[in-house]
């Protein structure tokens, strides 16, 4: 599972970096999106991958029994990812506004606001 997960992050990040370095604003936007997806997956992976492991301690703990913490998923990265997604969403929306405004003003979608030949 780890290797598939790592490959997925790697491909997302690599595509993201390539798109980020392209000259069209929409490509830059998609690059930022892919990079933030890769980052979100990476944060999630830093809590260690586990299947069928709840992030919350259950009734056994409340009853005072001793529990094995390795049977539970780490809740902190999940909370971090949630925050990162929200913030990333908001800032990407703002980037989109600037992108459209620049497109409307200059009539080109080049990141420098003019075609390199012109």
């Amino acid at each position, binding site marked *: 599972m780890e290797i598939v997960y790592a490959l997925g992050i790697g491909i997302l990040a690599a595509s993201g970096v390539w798109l*980020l370095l392209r000259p069209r*604003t929409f490509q*830059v936007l998609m690059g*930022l999106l892919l*990079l*933030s997806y890769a*980052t979100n997956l*990476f*944060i999630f*992976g*830093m*809590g*260690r991958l586990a299947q069928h492991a709840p992030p919350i301690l259950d009734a056994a703990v409340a009853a005072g029994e001793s529990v094995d913490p390795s049977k539970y998923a780490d809740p*902190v*990265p999940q909370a*971090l990812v949630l*925050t*990162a997604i929200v*913030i*990333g969403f*908001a*800032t*990407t929306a*703002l*980037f989109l*506004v*600037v*992108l*459209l*405004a*620049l497109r*409307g*003003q*200059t009539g080109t979608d080049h*990141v*420098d*606001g003019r075609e390199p030949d012109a």
Partner: protein
Amino acid sequence: MNALLRHLVVLPIIVPLLAGTLMFFLAEARRRARVALALISVLTQLAVGIALLYLTSDAAPYIWPEGVGVYPIGGWPAPFGIALVVDRLTAVMVTLSATVALSALVYSISRWDRPGQPFHSLFQFLVMGLNGAFLTGDLFNLFVFFEVLLAASYGLMLRGGGTERLRLGLHYVAVNLTGSILFLVGVALIYGMAGTLNMADLAGRAAALAPPERALFDAGAAILGVAFLIKAGSWPLNFWLPGTYSIAIAPVAAAFAMMTKVGLYAVLRLGTLMSEYETLGAALFYIGLATLATATVGLLGAKHLARLVSYSVLVSTGILLAALGLRIEALTAPILFYLIVSALTTCTFFMLTGMTDRTRQTNPPVSPDDDVGITPAYVAYGIKKPSVYAADVDAGVAIPAVMAFLGMAFVCCVMLVVGLPPLPGFLAKFALLATALGVAGSSPTPIAVWLLCAAVLVSGLAGLIALSRVGMRLFWSIATRTTPRLRLLEAAPVAALVLLAATLTVLAGPVNRYLGSAASSLHQPDAYVRAVLSLETRRERPEAKKP
């Protein structure tokens, strides 16, 4: 009383948040109410900052005995909940940001804040992000406050519209979004290896890591460092900065003067806390020198005053990074003093550019009015496009002897930037160089110290040459000059900041003593760590008594 004073720590975050939110409910026409709210908020922060300065000092040991105050949000114990931590460095930074914010705000009231609906709210959120970044004791929370501050800065930077501003705004947003992604990767790596995000907790756990994990942890710290260096504007991550800062309207650029300092603050705080100081330090020195060198070339090449001031921001970043990179503990106090002086200087200078631009209305380099297009936001809200360069409205109190005032202010700013006596720019650079040379003999790398001295002096000379050239063009070439009508509200903050700088010269002794104690507590992070983590034990004790 003491219990109430503990809550002071959270005020610099809560007050601007409330003020900024409340303003959304005020109609556009209620400008006075909005301005009053903004002023009350910033003045409160200034008062809180000064109170924190006093309470963390040795003069008031009854609340926070070791000068470190911890405020656990929601009462959760430290490594699990998010804690706000105030120590001497934090108190200095909060006061500094409130000072800068107050002057920029007063300045903006005269003409720049119309339409005021988004401006004042965004301004408050910017200040909230700054204060939060200084106060937080949690790495992920630092990320959140960075984002608050950046989101507000995107809106503020784009103010005024215009194609050029949009183009540079797009670059600014893209660079900072990439920086945020790097920040997250660094934070995730650090959490994955150390299992905590609390800065004080990290300090202990980083040292205890096994070598393979330690290597990944260091990689995480380095990625985090890159994110901070983007914010601080260090070479080669700073090509966005001169354009962005010089195109932003004057009060916004003045407020941005604090933003590069946040990156430096983060480097300083985490560097001393996580003992990464040793490994990252050597690289910092060369990065700093490279920043200084490129900024000096930029200074000499810049034609427009605002662009020149932007390069002087980079010069100060370069000096600070290079001095940090020397890893001499005695240098930390002069570094802090230089940081304060350079923040005040660039703030003053940016405000001045907003006024000198109007003396040359025939030829403003990039006037926001030069585009005929309309930005979508103004169309959507049915607002007529505002013009900051429109004819001076005969409202407000004008000041006499405009050109004399501008000239005097310009000379003062030049003396501050270049470091000429009697203003504190000289004292700051002198203290930095004298301390560095004092320990050069015992330092393992005396050549580095000499390099730093040479670079600082050469950049000062280059700054003097470039600024005199611009000054001559601005004030002595009469042909294309018009005398603008300056209002008291825009002249007063500039004069006040210059006076404040002069006061810093007079009070340099006490200020440096305080900064010295701030520096020594930075280099002995035990008190900080103990104060944050002891909350946990304090909370456990009553529970232990129960059975």
